[in-house]
């Protein structure tokens, strides 16, 4: 057993751990943040990607003892949970619990631009790979503000997604890059294919 102390999303977390404990397990079991996922434990699927001292790493491939003292940011650190503002008042929605879906935008007090772009572009299906994808893209887009779609594909080559075929993830990354650069964000889910709606 060995004592390890990390700063996780700004909070100090320390524990006596089995030396075999992976950084992933430290984040999930010691810090109690289960948004970082275990998809393979062999550094291939990317579901466990987090930031350590500003660099993105696959946390299943690092022992917690190797990064003693490090600053760690997980998916939970990108959008601290909070109640939504009351901007959709009806007589019965007094507690302000409801928010219209179009209110979800990437604002600093709301979601990270990558997260909100994932929502708009339907880049999430089962959502298991999503935290790792978001962390990798956040790190990548901070350093590469004007990527091509092929660049984005290469950037997430170490993250598997079995649901989406990656198309909407790349769409979201391009939108997030634009927003992070300060370009205007397109309105609504602009990528929807046009389907004639009948019957219903």
């Amino acid at each position, binding site marked *: 057993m060995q004592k390890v102390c990390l700063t996780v999303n700004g909070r100090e977390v320390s524990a006596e751990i089995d030396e*075999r404990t992976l950084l992933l397990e430290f984040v999930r079991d010691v810090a109690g943040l*289960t*948004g*970082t*996922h*275990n*998809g*393979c*434990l*062999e550094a*291939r*699927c990317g579901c466990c990607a987090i930031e350590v001292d500003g660099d993105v790493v696959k946390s299943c491939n690092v022992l917690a003892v190797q990064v003693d003292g490090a600053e760690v940011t997980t*998916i939970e650190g*990108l*959008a601290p*949970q909070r109640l939504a503002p009351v901007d*959709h008042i*009806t*007589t*019965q*929605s007094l507690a302000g619990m*409801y928010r*219209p*879906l179009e209110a*979800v935008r990437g604002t600093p007090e709301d*979601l990270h631009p990558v*997260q909100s772009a994932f*929502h708009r*572009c*339907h880049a*999430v*299906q*089962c*959502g*298991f790979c999503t935290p790792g994808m978001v962390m990798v893209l956040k790190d990548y887009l901070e350093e590469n503000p004007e990527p091509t*779609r*092929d660049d984005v*594909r*290469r950037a997430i*080559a170490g*993250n*598997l*997604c*079995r*649901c*989406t*075929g*990656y*198309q*909407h993830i*790349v769409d979201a990354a391009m939108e997030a890059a634009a927003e992070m650069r300060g370009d205007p964000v397109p309105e*609504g889910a602009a*990528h*929807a*294919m046009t*389907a004639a*709606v*009948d*019957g*219903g």
Partner: protein
Amino acid sequence: MTEAPAHPTGTAPRLVGTSVPRKEDLALLTGTARFVDDLRLPGMVHARILRSDVAHARVRSIDTSPALEAPGVLDALAGAELVGKVKPWGDLMQDLLVGDHFPFATDKVLYQGQELAAVVAETRYQAWDGCEAVRVDLEELPAIVDPEEALAPDAPLIQEQIVYEFGEGNVFDRYKIRVGDFAAAEAGAAVVVRQRFATNKQAGAALDPHGCVADYDSFTGVLTLYSSTQSIYMVRDVLADVLQIPRTKIRVIVPAVGAGFGSKAQIFGHEVIAALFSMRLGRPVKLTLSRADVFRAGTTRNAQVRYAELAMAADGEIIGYRDYIVHNTGAMSVWGNQVVHIGTNVGMLPYAIPNIHVDSDIVHTTTAPGGPLRGFGIPQTIWAKEQLVDMAARELGLDPLAVRERNVIDPDEFPYRTPMGHVIDSTSIKQCLLASADAIGWDAPRAPHEGKGLAVSMKYTSARHPSLDTDLSAVRLRLETDGTVTVYSSDVSHGQSHATMLAQIVADGIGVGIEKITLAPPDSMTAPFGLGTYASRGAAVLGTACRLATERLRDKILAIAAHVLEVGPEDLDTGRDRVFVKGLPDSGIYLEIIAATAAYRTHQLPPGFEPTLETVATYDTPTEREGSDGSGNLSVTYSGAAHAAHVRVDPDTGRVTVVDYAMVHDTGTVINPLVVEGQHHGGFAMGLGMALSEDYVYDAQGRQLNASFKDYLAVTAPDVPELTKTAEIPAPSTMIPGGQKGAGESGTGPVPAAIGNAVFDATGVRFTVLPITPQRMLVALREKERQGVETLRYPDDMPDFTGPRRHDDWPAPVSADADLDFDFDWEDD
């Protein structure tokens, strides 16, 4: 048939048909969603399964006692002590249940990864150490990896304990189709093309590994199982039977599920083992599978060998199809034999082939269990059939597009019944075909090393499985006393967006804001009985149940409002969270008031009104059971998919790159276009993996060499072309009240065949096995060059022949002989 409900939403926008951003997303995006591995219960302990590293062996002894001495270990189990205490479960064959599954191997190991013993300890690492201490003595037996070897008379018998009703030896079940007269079609055909095709064993590889937490309360006797599964009732009912306890003593709850693709549509040994440990210890037990465990012990796409023949008239009409299929269902499989039934029956579409003759031997091998995987046998059938269509077209000098255009179903009136028995209620497959070919520039010249290929398929929308005489989903709705709505369903959403899709239906039906509708997590204590989420049944079958429940809830709401407002219900409309008199959308009563009336002011209810705002509805599709000749309308409606691939083959590396890809689909009336588009993209990616990279690679001893994402070659983002040519040409179902057709799997069916046809166009090599790896491509190109031929079938070159179609009558596969007859007259370079 039920009438489609109206959508009187007053001034509110109609949500069905719009790309509403998903209600599911926020929890998944911010890390607050809880998957099964995220659950931590007080006092929870950790179990691990020791799995066999050999594929086929006799068990001499398994001694768990040393594990009990290891630090932290609380309990250990192996097979011998459970015999006679828990009931086997297993394969569904026609109407028979075969008890070939047991929590652990007892006298024989049948595949690598089968459970030998399990250990539960205070921590995960202690459970690992405990497993290492278990003493195992196995006598290894010869493995059978090749399904055709399993048919040999002297092949070692895999399942020794079970006497099969419909097969013998390693043949577990048989399947046949007898429609029309193939011999007559063959005699009258201008050309009959024949080829042996083989398909691969593909993994679902859902990123969320299978796992569960079992929590037994020894005072009440209730076992709560949190599991990553696609069907709560299938798990509950089988588990209750295995443990021989009442169904009410088992509660199955499903947290967020990180996809399944069919690989979680059954109960698994680990669920039984965790339950047993929890019952023995009285503590919650977590058991999550490792990635290698999921590869080795999860279910895979059934690999097939097909000796397929297609008869075509001189004008390009497809007049017959014959096939002998060796269907590899692995060492055991709950769903395996169903795959060949439904995949072949529905795989005959989108053609109305009049003469069909199919035989299939469904065999065991000492490999991972086969089972459902996105497409359910249809990609395998299409891989053979759609390549034969191209081969026949070329022999006749016809354009593959023109041949398909001539043959796809395009009747003058619907419903149209095919000779196979499918009842087609509507389809736009012809328009889809033409649009897809046009989108990739079918007629444009090909650059060197580039080629184009087409494939079309239709996919069932849910199905009456031959062994399950049901096709049922259910929804219960409750208008809560604050005007919000809770939706209860047992069909697990694991990527399909049920929370959004059902909310769109409810919002339109009763005029409540979509943000006020909540989908309850699937829980067998509260959810109405339904089969689960598989077979592309969500939007059409579950959605119809939801539509019917919404209509009933609307009727109740209007009855109360009419009484309070003293008008007739026909004068009322709903929208913006209220009920109002038609034409006066800014007045009216809020749903909150109506709900509160039903709960708290019951004297204001109409006379005789039952004071509840809860409704339940079920929908069981009007489908047929399979006939003895294999025909039948197994599905309520059929979605269409026409794919067109444009590939480039690098002659130096052998790599196939899909440079352009068009998918045009008929998914009927689309509830959420962006969600449906996402389903097609994902379906394509799974088909791309099947076509080019994904397979289980076994050594001669039956050990899987690539049970890791390092070696398995799952599709990554750079492998996928830009899927900008994805479109819908909706032909709304007339059977489903909302017009929907299944979306989840139709994107997979045509992919391997479309790419195979494009590869032939680019290289002159007709690949007969999947996947088309760079290694195979390089060997094939060299072989073609060595022989100096224009075209080559690789690796199974089957010159045309006549004679009976039993596999042992076929010439042995050789790669040496080319077929020189093909004409390249439509090739532009």
